[in-house]
């Protein structure tokens, strides 16, 4: 404790004498508590007390019909649902909502009956229903507040609007997600089908594996065959090479044959030409031969006769001379014969012989000659016979020849034709043989390539075998994998949604299916404009307090005078009121011109502020006149009570009930309200009402001041010797 006789103790001792001074010390201690405590109490949690405020909800919505994924039509009446939810028993959406008509809501907002108006437009349900459709639309609601009623509330209402928006959005999203879940079940079914398909795939893969195994075996066989093929093609290569050589030779031979055939044809042509006259000649030959035969026969006969003669000559050799004429005849005949047939050597011989014989008969050598003649005649007779026979045969042959000559001629002609054809043919053959040779050469080349190919085939087949083995492994794995796929698909069939092509577009709307539009009526541009209606009266209240710290509320001279108490009261109030008006005018002008507070009715605002100042002055004078120095303490407490209950920042409904109960009984409530309407530019009606109430407060204060003056005209001993001067 403070020592009694210390300086602080002595200073405080001044206050220990009387009860009022002790209370004054207590008041000094408590003023900060009153100020801070009340202020913070009133602002405990304004937002959580928003339900104490009434708000209207206007439903202009029309129900919409929507077709669900299951195809059944469903009616969406989101507006009615929202109204029911907001006005329902367990609604917790900021304000206490009431369904209202548009007219009621607008009027209520103006009157301050409703803190906010929520408007649900006509197409609300339709827009909400559209989130699941082809053309998603944002549903809109508007929340309207009036800055002329409260500025902070306009700010706070954003929270409420957000809450409602979120709530409606949640409902809409639920509807939408129901559809999504239906889609999920479809996906689920589809996944079941996919699992079945995967099973079939697994089966098929197993069969593929079997096939691959068979392929491995078959490729083994193919490898063997390819090896054999390589052997065969090698032989083919050799053979085709030989063939090429052979055909080359054939071609060469054919060329030779062609040349020969050409010569043959030429020869045959000549033969044909030559045999043209053959039939005639042979006929002549035949005739000639016949004549020869005849002649020969005659010769033979002659010869026989000669021979007989010669036989007879021989004994008559001496009669040789008699033979000369006969030989001459014979020579004659032979010569004729030989002339007939100059080509016949026999005839020529015979002629020659006959000539020798004639000679020999002439030269006397007849004996010999006769011998010779005999022999000769014998030979001649023989020859003649032979000749005859021959001539006959020639004749017969010539006859046959003549008979055959046409046929021969024809045959030769045909042979010539044939030889021509042969020549042509052999030329063609030669050409063909050359082509064949070329072809055979190509064949040989081809056979070589075939052989190479067959070798490659054999190698490829080996690789194919390896590949087929890998394929068999792969198809085994495929079969395993397909089995796993089937299992996994079966496991995962309740997962994985598909939002389709409109996903992105729809996502925006689904993410925010409802837009809450904020409308502020009589909106003021800035926070300062919103707060000015509170702080102008607060300033004027403080101004009034200061005024009567400087001025005396009531002049002691006036009280002690013989003038009436009313005059004394007015005498104390008038200078204060004058200062108050000056305060209000200066304050408003600075606010308008320097701070930038704006009002559509600056003059009315200044006048109203002046009224507020005058009324506040009267109240302060009253408090001072009534309570003296204690009145200033009371004014201080009243300041904070008004600051907290005037609803200058948050609506008074958001403060504890104490402040709401106080609200109508304190002048600053009306001062703030009037200024708010004036600065926000709202209707004039409430301003007049506020001014009237304020004037009432002023008159009341002045009346009380008069009473106080009347009372204070009687002094007490304590007043004469005041121990406390405030």
């Amino acid at each position: 404790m403070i020592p009694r006789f210390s300086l602080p103790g002595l200073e405080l001792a001044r206050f220990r004498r009387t009860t009022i001074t002790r209370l004054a010390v207590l008041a000094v201690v408590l003023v900060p508590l009153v100020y801070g405590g009340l202020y913070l109490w009133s602002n405990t949690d304004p937002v959580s007390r928003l339900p104490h405020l009434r708000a209207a909800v206007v439903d202009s919505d029309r129900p919409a019909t929507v077709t669900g994924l299951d195809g059944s039509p469903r009616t969406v009446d989101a507006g009615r649902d929202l109204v029911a939810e907001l006005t329902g028993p367990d609604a917790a959406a900021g304000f206490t909502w009431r369904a209202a008509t548009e007219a009621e809501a607008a009027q209520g907002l103006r009157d301050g009956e409703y803190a906010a108006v929520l408007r649900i437009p006509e197409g609300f349900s339709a827009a909400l229903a559209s989130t699941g459709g082809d053309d998603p639309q944002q549903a809109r609601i508007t929340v309207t507040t009036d800055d002329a009623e409260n500025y902070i509330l306009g700010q706070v209402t954003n929270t409420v609007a957000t809450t409602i928006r979120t709530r409606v959005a949640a409902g809409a999203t639920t509807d939408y997600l129901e559809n999504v879940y239906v889609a999920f079940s479809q996906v689920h079914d589809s996944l079941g089908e996919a699992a079945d398909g995967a099973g079939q795939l697994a089966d098929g893969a197993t069969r593929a594996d079997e096939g691959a195994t068979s392929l491995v075996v078959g490729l083994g066989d193919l490898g063997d065959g390819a090896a054999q093929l390589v052997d065969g093609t090698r032989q083919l290569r050799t053979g085709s090479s030989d063939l090429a050589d052979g055909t080359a030779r054939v071609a060469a031979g054919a060329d030779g044959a062609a040349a020969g055939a050409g010569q043959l044809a030429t020869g045959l042509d000549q033969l044909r030409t030559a045999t043209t006259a053959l039939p005639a000649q042979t006929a002549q030959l035949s005739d000639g031969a016949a004549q020869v035969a005849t002649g020969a026969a005659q010769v033979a006969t002659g010869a026989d006769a000669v021979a007989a003669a010669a036989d007879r000559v021989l004994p008559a050799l001496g009669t040789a001379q008699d033979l000369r004429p006969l030989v001459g005849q014979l020579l004659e005949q032979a010569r004729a014969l030989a002339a007939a047939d100059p080509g016949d050597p026999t005839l020529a011989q015979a002629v020659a012989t006959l000539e020798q014989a004639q000679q020999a008969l002439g030269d006397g050598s007849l004996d010999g000659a006769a011998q010779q003649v005999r022999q000769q005649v014998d030979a001649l007779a023989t020859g003649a016979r032979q000749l005859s026979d021959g001539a006959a045969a020639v004749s017969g042959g010539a006859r046959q020849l003549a008979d055959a000559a046409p046929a021969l001629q024809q045959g030769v002609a045909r042979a010539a034709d044939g030889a021509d054809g042969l020549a042509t043919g052999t030329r063609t053959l030669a050409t063909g043989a050359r082509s064949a040779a070329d072809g055979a050469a190509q064949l040989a080349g081809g056979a070589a390539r075939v052989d190479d190919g067959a070798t490659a085939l054999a190698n490829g087949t080996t690789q194919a075998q390896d590949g087929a083995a890998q394929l068999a492994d792969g198809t085994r794995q495929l079969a395993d994998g397909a089995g796993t796929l089937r299992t996994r698909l079966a496991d995962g069939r309740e997962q994985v949604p598909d939002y389709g092509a409109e996903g992105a577009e729809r996502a925006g709307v689904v993410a925010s299916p409802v837009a809450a539009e904020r409308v502020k009526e009589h909106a003021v541009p800035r926070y300062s404009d919103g707060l000015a209606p509170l702080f102008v009266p607060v300033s004027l209240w403080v101004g009034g307090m200061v005024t009567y710290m400087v001025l005396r509320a009531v002049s002691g001279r006036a009280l002690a005078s013989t003038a009436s108490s009313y005059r004394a009261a007015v005498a104390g109030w008038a200078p204060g009121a004058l200062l108050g008006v000056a305060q209000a005018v200066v304050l408003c002008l600075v606010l308008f011109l320097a701070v930038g507070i704006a009002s559509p009715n600056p003059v009315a605002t200044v006048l109203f502020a002046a009224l507020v100042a005058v009324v506040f002055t009267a109240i302060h004078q009253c408090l001072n006149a009534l309570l003296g120095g204690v009145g200033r303490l009371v004014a201080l407490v009243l300041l904070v009570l008004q600051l907290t209950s005037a609803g200058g920042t948050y609506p008074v409904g958001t403060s504890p009930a104490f402040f709401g109960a106080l609200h109508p009984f304190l002048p600053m409530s009306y001062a703030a309200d009037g200024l708010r309407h004036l600065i926000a530019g709202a209707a004039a009606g409430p301003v007049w009402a506020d001014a009237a109430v304020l004037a009432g407060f002023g008159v009341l204060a002045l009346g009380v001041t008069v009473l106080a003056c009347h009372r204070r005209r009687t002094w007490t001993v304590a007043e004469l010797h005041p121990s406390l001067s405030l």
Partner: protein
Amino acid sequence: MNQPVDQPVDRPVIRAEGLELRAGGRTVYSGVDLDVAEGSVLVVRGRAGQGKTSLLLTLAGRMRPTAGHLAVLGEPLPARAGAVRRRVALAEVRGVNDLDDALTVEQHVAERLVLHQPWHRPWVSDAQVGEQLERAGQVLARTADAGADVPALRPREFVSDLDPLERMTLGVVLALIGRPDVLVVDDVDSLRRGEDRRRAWASLAALRGTTPLTVVASCSDTSDVRWRSGDHHTLLDLADR
């Protein structure tokens, strides 16, 4: 000896019987019996702290006695205090209606004039103030004629510049503006110079002679009082009780 001017002695202005005031556990005054005739002077004498000011305020209807009977100007107190207050004027009483050092003589006069005007006329003209000052001057002159010799008031002079006698004079002049029936002057002894006190008393006596005014004054020492013959005066000595 001069006869009293025109006061009917038989009309009592103040009648008190067993008047007593107790406050804060002590007796401020007690046993006051008075019978003051109209136009007379009541001198209340007592030492400092003996309740002179309280008794004067009680008689002026501005303090409630705790016991006894009192009637002023025929009005019983404290029941008719309001009526009494309108007819009993106080000159300057320190701690009750102090003059303002920051105001001039004429401003005080104007203030007092305004207080006696109806509410819708919160100002007075220079002429009114001048007239009132002139009237005060006439009164002072008359008292001077009676030998009081109180200096005239200079209208533009600030109260802080007045000497004590002038200040008391201003208080009296202001009190008389309301044309009271009783004038109350506290603590004439506050004038430190004996000459001033003598002139003050003389002046008060002279005032009584100008109107049917009853004067109530207090002091701690009456040695400076020069009672003229024919003066109706009553002396109440609080120190004797």
